[in-house]
């Protein structure tokens, strides 16, 4: 079984690696979006520290949405998506592997860059650690939930704006948990509760989201 | 009770009448819009049925 999963993972990585351009675009978007906050608001160090968790999280959130645009669209256009739906493996499992691969390619670089962004906003070392950890747990949830929206809107002409509209309500709880973990650290509040909730959200979405995405894709291909 | 006093609502007239006014306006607009939509659909369907019936009739004659 794990051999088959590995084969699936490799297969998705091969495909995603063909689109290095996309990864660069998403990362560039993230960096620019984060940089715009000080430019648009103020360079006051105290204020920057206050908005840092929100700014970095919101930039990561929109980068995720941007990356989701390509999750299924090319596969739908060239017909490989329907072939994947006919593979003799459970669709939800196939999708889970795919989402993991997608996260590794598009979100992991953002998580790795987040400490640098934290430095730019004058965060302390432990705050940066919490920020990175919250993104490490939070971005997979964003990808897992976002895939539902991506699956429902793939192939539509105006999918970009629509997918944002569909996803924002789903993303609010994750955003709240992630940013408040960082700001609570700044205020010296214990963040165990934040991370328990984030962890629980990750587990629940890992379990449920592949089925939801599978259902959504079946509807889209119908 | 004096009408002006009633409308003034102890200084809260703008908020109260703003609330009820917009709500009433939206509900009337929605209601009228829905009734019009139904009537339009009904009319179009009837016209279409009549058109198709006529075309079918001609097809049989010709």
């Amino acid at each position, binding site marked *: 079984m794990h051999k088959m999963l590995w084969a699936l993972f490799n297969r998705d990585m*091969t495909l995603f690696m*063909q*689109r290095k351009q996309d990864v660069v675009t998403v990362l560039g978007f993230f960096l620019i979006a984060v940089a715009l906050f000080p430019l648009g608001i103020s360079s006051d160090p105290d204020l920057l520290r206050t908005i840092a968790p929100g700014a970095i999280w919101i930039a990561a959130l929109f980068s995720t949405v941007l990356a989701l645009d390509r999750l299924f669209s090319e596969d739908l256009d060239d*017909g490989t998506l*329907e072939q994947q*739906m*006919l593979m003799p493996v459970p669709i939800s499992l196939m999708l889970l592997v795919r989402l993991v691969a997608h996260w590794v390619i598009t979100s992991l670089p953002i998580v790795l860059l987040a400490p640098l962004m934290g430095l730019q906003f004058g965060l302390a070392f432990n705050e940066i650690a919490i920020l990175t950890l919250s993104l490490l747990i939070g971005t997979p949830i964003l990808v897992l939930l976002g895939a539902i929206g991506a699956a429902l809107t793939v192939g539509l002409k105006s999918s970009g704006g629509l997918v944002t509209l569909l996803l924002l309500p789903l993303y609010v709880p994750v955003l709240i948990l992630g940013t408040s973990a960082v700001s609570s650290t700044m205020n010296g509040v214990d963040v165990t509760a934040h991370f328990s909730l984030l962890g629980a959200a990750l587990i629940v979405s890992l379990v449920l989201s592949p089925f939801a995405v599978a259902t959504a894709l079946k509807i889209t*291909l119908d | 009770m004096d009408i002006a006093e009633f409308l003034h609502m102890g200084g809260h007239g703008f908020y109260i009448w703003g609330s009820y006014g917009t709500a009433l306006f939206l509900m009337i607009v929605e209601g009228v819009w829905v009734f019009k939509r139904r009537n339009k659909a009904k009319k179009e369907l009837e016209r279409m049925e009549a058109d198709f019936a006529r075309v079918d009739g001609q097809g049989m004659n010709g």
Partner: protein
Amino acid sequence: MLEVEGLAAEREERLLFSGLSVSVSAGEGLHIIGENGAGKTTLLRILCGLTLQSAGKISWCGQAVSKFREEYCSDLLYLGHKNANKTELNCRENLRLALGVLPVSDDAISDALHDTGLGLISHLPTRFLSQGQQRRLSLARLLLTKSKLWILDEPYVALDYKAIEWLDSHLERHLSNQGMLILTSHQKLTMSSEIRVLNLGEQYA
């Protein structure tokens, strides 16, 4: 054996077909014909489980396919309108990708590509290939698959007469090996094997 009972499908408020019952047993072929919009592609997609029927049952070896999806899919090979080739990848990579989790040796893939006439250009990204070559690449899967049931949507499109002969010979061999075949085609079939015909338009004619 594939059994279809009382199948119905609708699209955009329109009933495409209903009460369709047909069965395909080992070594049998079924050619689905009908005018444009009669629902040929929809029928094939329903048989694969990609589209949901509005009524009716499909069973494979006596079991409902909706309940034994993985088993059914491992016996099934579907080829749609789209070639399902990744334009950035070369023929060899595409073929390996298309075979999914099926373990196939590199030599077998080379042989299949040679047999398909793509051996010399197998290292080229498929965006440089012509329509006919792309179609042949997706048909190369037929040489490597172990599936018993082939469902092919317009497999002859974009093929020249030589490629048609090549495809015919493989379809015939599949049938003589007790395989099953369901296909749509606008052209008259040139295969020498006996193929049943199902006319989707007939029900309402």
